[in-house]
């Protein structure tokens, strides 16, 4: 098992920035980067679909130490909705079509940036989890919504 640590979020941020990948942290890892107090075991990134961004993504993932075969890289480039990587230094989920968010451009327009980390807006993280409607999401949504309100109020002040 590969555990996910804060420094690995930094590695993702830096490698993706070097390659010019258009993405946002999403899911619980995104919420934690915004200040949500919780734990996570992997990183979830919402990546824009497209050949150029896909090629940049594959290069960045390999740079991070993920052992991608050419066939696996081709699958990422082909534009799957969801790719789960456990062949690297930590677990990484690539989400190209998260539930509850229609288009990447919409999430991009609402994005937040914390300490250089590109993160989906809490509303989008919540929308995604609400649409997914898993048992674990049902458990975390009330606290996520309360955190969103606190986060928004702090930004106004």
């Amino acid at each position, binding site marked *: 098992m590969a*555990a996910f640590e804060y420094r690995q979020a930094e590695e993702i941020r830096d490698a993706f920035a070097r390659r010019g990948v258009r993405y946002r942290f999403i899911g619980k890892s995104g919420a934690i980067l915004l*200040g949500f107090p919780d734990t996570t075991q992997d990183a979830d990134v919402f990546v824009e679909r497209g050949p150029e961004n896909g090629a940049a993504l594959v290069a960045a993932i390999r740079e991070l130490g993920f052992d991608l075969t050419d066939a696996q890289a081709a699958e990422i480039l082909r534009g799957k909705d*969801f790719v789960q990587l*456990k*062949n690297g230094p930590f677990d990484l989920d690539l989400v190209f079509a998260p539930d509850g968010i229609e288009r990447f451009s919409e999430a991009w327009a609402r994005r937040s940036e914390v300490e250089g980390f590109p993160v989906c807006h809490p509303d989008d993280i919540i929308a995604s989890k609400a649409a997914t409607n898993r*048992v674990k999401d049902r458990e975390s949504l009330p606290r996520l919504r309360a955190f969103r309100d606190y986060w928004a109020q702090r930004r106004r002040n």
Partner: protein
Amino acid sequence: MDQIAAAEVDQLQPGADMLDDEPFRAFDKMADYRAWCQSALPSWLGYGRV
């Protein structure tokens, strides 16, 4: 940043024997992934839809 560093802690992943069997999984549609979670993972992990 200390808060974030503390939030993302090493922990034993529940169900690791079930979750770590494949180094790479790709799903054409999110619905395919959700269906896989529903059928392949134990309910106590919480990945099943309500």
